[in-house]
Protein backbone atom coordinates (compact mmCIF):
# COMPACT_ATOMS: atom_id res chain seq x y z
CA UNK A 1 0.00 0.00 0.00
CA UNK A 2 1.47 3.34 -1.01
CA UNK A 3 2.03 5.92 1.68
CA UNK A 4 -0.86 8.38 1.63
CA UNK A 5 -0.34 12.10 1.54
CA UNK A 6 -2.83 13.69 3.92
CA UNK A 7 -3.31 17.44 4.10
CA UNK A 8 -4.39 18.83 7.45
CA UNK A 9 -5.59 22.39 7.09
CA UNK A 10 -7.22 25.22 8.98
CA UNK A 11 -7.53 28.94 8.36
CA UNK A 12 -4.21 29.98 9.87
CA UNK A 13 -2.48 26.61 9.73
CA UNK A 14 -1.40 26.97 13.36
CA UNK A 15 -4.16 26.26 15.83
CA UNK A 16 -6.89 23.79 15.06
CA UNK A 17 -4.85 21.97 12.41
CA UNK A 18 -2.21 21.30 15.08
CA UNK A 19 -4.76 19.47 17.20
CA UNK A 20 -6.17 17.54 14.24
CA UNK A 21 -2.68 16.70 12.94
CA UNK A 22 -1.69 15.17 16.24
CA UNK A 23 -4.93 13.19 16.49
CA UNK A 24 -4.41 11.67 13.03
CA UNK A 25 -0.77 10.96 13.84
CA UNK A 26 -1.82 8.96 16.89
CA UNK A 27 -4.56 7.21 14.99
CA UNK A 28 -2.23 6.17 12.17
CA UNK A 29 0.29 4.89 14.69
CA UNK A 30 -2.33 2.83 16.54
CA UNK A 31 -3.41 1.27 13.27
CA UNK A 32 0.15 0.87 12.02
CA UNK A 33 -0.48 2.95 8.93
CA UNK A 34 2.39 4.92 7.49
CA UNK A 35 1.10 8.32 6.47
CA UNK A 36 2.63 11.53 5.19
CA UNK A 37 0.88 14.34 7.10
CA UNK A 38 1.26 17.90 5.85
CA UNK A 39 -0.07 20.72 8.03
CA UNK A 40 -1.00 23.81 6.01
CA UNK A 41 -3.30 26.79 5.70
CA UNK A 42 -6.46 26.03 3.75
CA UNK A 43 -5.35 28.63 1.18
CA UNK A 44 -2.30 26.47 0.41
CA UNK A 45 -4.24 23.34 -0.56
CA UNK A 46 -3.97 24.19 -4.27
CA UNK A 47 -0.23 23.53 -4.23
CA UNK A 48 -0.94 19.90 -3.34
CA UNK A 49 -3.78 19.17 -5.72
CA UNK A 50 -1.71 16.74 -7.79
CA UNK A 51 -0.17 14.81 -4.92
CA UNK A 52 -2.64 14.68 -2.02
CA UNK A 53 -4.85 11.67 -1.23
CA UNK A 54 -7.03 13.28 1.39
CA UNK A 55 -7.81 16.66 2.96
CA UNK A 56 -8.84 16.84 6.60
CA UNK A 57 -9.85 20.32 7.63
CA UNK A 58 -11.65 22.45 10.20
CA UNK A 59 -12.14 25.24 7.65
CA UNK A 60 -14.93 25.61 5.16
CA UNK A 61 -14.06 24.22 1.73
CA UNK A 62 -15.50 26.07 -1.25
CA UNK A 63 -13.43 24.42 -3.96
CA UNK A 64 -13.91 20.93 -5.39
CA UNK A 65 -10.78 18.80 -5.17
CA UNK A 66 -9.82 15.52 -6.85
CA UNK A 67 -9.49 13.89 -3.40
CA UNK A 68 -11.97 13.41 -0.54
CA UNK A 69 -12.44 16.14 2.04
CA UNK A 70 -13.29 15.32 5.66
CA UNK A 71 -14.49 17.93 8.16
CA UNK A 72 -12.55 17.59 11.41
CA UNK A 73 -14.38 19.94 13.74
CA UNK A 74 -15.32 16.94 15.86
CA UNK A 75 -11.69 16.63 16.98
CA UNK A 76 -12.15 20.00 18.68
CA UNK A 77 -15.62 19.59 20.10
CA UNK A 78 -15.66 15.84 20.73
CA UNK A 79 -19.10 15.64 19.12
CA UNK A 80 -19.08 12.85 16.51
CA UNK A 81 -15.34 12.27 16.83
CA UNK A 82 -15.56 8.48 16.48
CA UNK A 83 -17.42 8.84 13.17
CA UNK A 84 -14.81 11.24 11.84
CA UNK A 85 -12.01 8.92 12.92
CA UNK A 86 -13.64 6.04 11.08
CA UNK A 87 -14.08 8.12 7.94
CA UNK A 88 -10.40 9.04 8.00
CA UNK A 89 -9.29 5.49 8.73
CA UNK A 90 -11.29 4.04 5.88
CA UNK A 91 -9.68 6.56 3.52
CA UNK A 92 -6.21 5.73 4.83
CA UNK A 93 -6.84 2.02 4.36
CA UNK A 94 -7.97 2.40 0.74
Amino acid at each position, binding site marked *: MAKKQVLVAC*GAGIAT*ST*VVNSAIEEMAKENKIDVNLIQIKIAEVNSYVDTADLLVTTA*MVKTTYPFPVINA*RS*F*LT*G*IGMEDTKEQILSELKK
Partner: protein
Amino acid sequence: MAEFYLDKRLVFLQMTGSQEDILRSMAENLVKEDLVETSFVAGIINREKEYPTGLPTSSSISIAIPHTDIEHVKKNAISIALLKKPVTFQVMGEVSMETPVSIIFMLAMQESHAQLTILKKLMDFLQDETTLQDLSESQSQEHVVSLIERKLSLSASKGGDR
Protein backbone atom coordinates in the same frame (compact mmCIF):
# COMPACT_ATOMS: atom_id res chain seq x y z
CA MET B 1 6.74 23.88 26.39
CA ALA B 2 6.25 27.44 25.29
CA GLU B 3 4.93 29.89 27.79
CA PHE B 4 1.45 31.33 27.44
CA TYR B 5 0.66 34.66 28.95
CA LEU B 6 -2.58 35.03 30.89
CA ASP B 7 -3.39 37.80 33.29
CA LYS B 8 -6.59 39.18 34.77
CA ARG B 9 -6.14 42.24 32.54
CA LEU B 10 -6.87 39.89 29.61
CA VAL B 11 -10.14 38.70 31.16
CA PHE B 12 -13.47 40.41 30.44
CA LEU B 13 -16.65 39.73 32.40
CA GLN B 14 -20.23 40.54 31.39
CA MET B 15 -19.10 41.73 27.98
CA THR B 16 -21.69 43.18 25.61
CA GLY B 17 -21.74 44.44 22.03
CA SER B 18 -21.72 43.07 18.50
CA GLN B 19 -19.36 40.28 17.53
CA GLU B 20 -17.03 42.75 15.84
CA ASP B 21 -17.09 45.22 18.77
CA ILE B 22 -16.17 42.45 21.16
CA LEU B 23 -13.37 41.03 18.99
CA ARG B 24 -12.04 44.54 18.47
CA SER B 25 -12.00 45.38 22.19
CA MET B 26 -10.28 42.12 23.07
CA ALA B 27 -7.69 42.51 20.32
CA GLU B 28 -7.02 46.19 21.06
CA ASN B 29 -6.46 45.26 24.68
CA LEU B 30 -3.79 42.76 23.58
CA VAL B 31 -2.18 45.58 21.56
CA LYS B 32 -2.25 47.82 24.63
CA GLU B 33 -0.59 45.10 26.70
CA ASP B 34 2.14 44.93 24.01
CA LEU B 35 1.47 41.24 23.34
CA VAL B 36 0.53 41.67 19.66
CA GLU B 37 1.14 44.05 16.77
CA THR B 38 -1.46 46.71 15.85
CA SER B 39 -2.22 44.65 12.73
CA PHE B 40 -3.53 41.84 14.97
CA VAL B 41 -6.85 43.70 15.38
CA ALA B 42 -7.74 43.69 11.67
CA GLY B 43 -6.21 40.23 11.36
CA ILE B 44 -8.60 38.80 13.94
CA ILE B 45 -11.69 40.51 12.55
CA ASN B 46 -11.00 39.55 8.93
CA ARG B 47 -10.02 36.01 9.81
CA GLU B 48 -13.24 35.48 11.73
CA LYS B 49 -15.22 36.57 8.66
CA GLU B 50 -13.28 34.30 6.34
CA TYR B 51 -12.72 31.32 8.64
CA PRO B 52 -15.21 31.47 11.52
CA THR B 53 -14.28 29.87 14.83
CA GLY B 54 -17.60 29.29 16.59
CA LEU B 55 -17.75 25.85 18.21
CA PRO B 56 -20.87 24.22 19.62
CA THR B 57 -19.96 22.02 22.58
CA SER B 58 -21.70 19.05 24.14
CA SER B 59 -23.15 21.39 26.78
CA SER B 60 -25.47 24.31 26.08
CA ILE B 61 -22.48 26.68 26.08
CA SER B 62 -20.93 27.47 22.70
CA ILE B 63 -17.50 29.00 22.50
CA ALA B 64 -15.33 30.71 19.88
CA ILE B 65 -11.57 30.59 19.48
CA PRO B 66 -10.65 33.58 17.28
CA HIS B 67 -6.99 33.68 16.21
CA THR B 68 -4.92 34.88 13.28
CA ASP B 69 -1.55 34.62 11.57
CA ILE B 70 1.61 34.31 13.61
CA GLU B 71 3.25 37.45 12.19
CA HIS B 72 0.83 39.68 14.12
CA VAL B 73 1.87 38.19 17.44
CA LYS B 74 4.67 39.30 19.78
CA LYS B 75 4.06 36.92 22.64
CA ASN B 76 1.87 33.84 23.17
CA ALA B 77 -1.20 34.92 25.08
CA ILE B 78 -4.79 33.99 25.73
CA SER B 79 -7.59 36.47 26.36
CA ILE B 80 -10.98 35.38 27.65
CA ALA B 81 -14.36 37.10 27.47
CA LEU B 82 -17.52 35.94 29.19
CA LEU B 83 -20.47 37.43 27.33
CA LYS B 84 -23.44 38.83 29.18
CA LYS B 85 -25.73 37.48 26.47
CA PRO B 86 -24.71 34.96 23.80
CA VAL B 87 -23.52 36.51 20.54
CA THR B 88 -24.00 34.76 17.20
CA PHE B 89 -20.90 33.34 15.52
CA GLN B 90 -20.62 31.24 12.39
CA VAL B 91 -19.66 27.66 13.13
CA MET B 92 -16.15 26.65 12.15
CA GLY B 93 -16.04 24.89 8.80
CA GLU B 94 -19.70 25.44 7.92
CA VAL B 95 -21.17 27.60 5.20
CA SER B 96 -24.37 28.55 6.95
CA MET B 97 -24.50 27.28 10.50
CA GLU B 98 -24.59 29.66 13.44
CA THR B 99 -24.14 29.16 17.15
CA PRO B 100 -24.82 31.43 20.17
CA VAL B 101 -21.40 31.94 21.76
CA SER B 102 -21.09 32.66 25.50
CA ILE B 103 -17.33 32.37 26.00
CA ILE B 104 -14.57 33.67 23.74
CA PHE B 105 -10.99 32.41 23.94
CA MET B 106 -8.84 34.72 21.83
CA LEU B 107 -5.53 33.08 21.02
CA ALA B 108 -2.36 34.97 20.20
CA MET B 109 0.10 32.37 18.97
CA GLN B 110 3.56 32.62 17.51
CA GLU B 111 4.08 29.08 16.30
CA SER B 112 2.15 25.87 16.16
CA HIS B 113 3.94 22.82 17.44
CA ALA B 114 5.07 24.22 20.75
CA GLN B 115 1.46 25.00 21.55
CA LEU B 116 0.08 21.53 20.98
CA THR B 117 -0.16 20.68 24.67
CA ILE B 118 -2.02 23.89 25.44
CA LEU B 119 -4.34 23.48 22.47
CA LYS B 120 -5.14 19.90 23.35
CA LYS B 121 -5.90 20.92 26.92
CA LEU B 122 -8.07 23.73 25.65
CA MET B 123 -10.03 21.22 23.57
CA ASP B 124 -10.36 18.87 26.58
CA PHE B 125 -11.61 21.86 28.49
CA LEU B 126 -14.32 22.48 25.88
CA GLN B 127 -15.47 18.89 26.23
CA ASP B 128 -15.79 19.25 30.00
CA GLU B 129 -19.30 20.54 30.70
CA THR B 130 -18.78 21.11 34.42
CA THR B 131 -15.73 23.28 33.92
CA LEU B 132 -17.34 25.25 31.11
CA GLN B 133 -20.34 25.91 33.33
CA ASP B 134 -18.05 26.96 36.18
CA LEU B 135 -16.16 29.29 33.85
CA SER B 136 -19.30 30.85 32.38
CA GLU B 137 -20.58 31.64 35.87
CA SER B 138 -17.32 33.22 37.07
CA GLN B 139 -17.85 36.39 39.05
CA SER B 140 -14.25 37.60 39.13
CA GLN B 141 -11.32 37.90 36.75
CA GLU B 142 -9.14 36.15 39.32
CA HIS B 143 -11.43 33.13 39.31
CA VAL B 144 -11.22 32.91 35.52
CA VAL B 145 -7.43 33.16 35.57
CA SER B 146 -6.99 30.51 38.24
CA LEU B 147 -9.47 28.16 36.58
CA ILE B 148 -7.79 28.46 33.18
CA GLU B 149 -4.29 28.24 34.64
CA ARG B 150 -5.25 25.06 36.45
CA LYS B 151 -7.02 23.46 33.49
CA LEU B 152 -4.38 24.35 30.92
CA SER B 153 -1.49 23.82 33.37
CA LEU B 154 -0.24 27.26 32.41
CA SER B 155 1.62 27.77 35.65
CA ALA B 156 3.52 24.53 35.09
CA SER B 157 4.61 25.79 31.69
CA LYS B 158 6.33 28.85 33.13
CA GLY B 159 10.07 28.74 33.32
CA GLY B 160 10.99 28.48 29.66
CA ASP B 161 11.35 25.71 27.17
CA ARG B 162 11.57 22.11 28.19
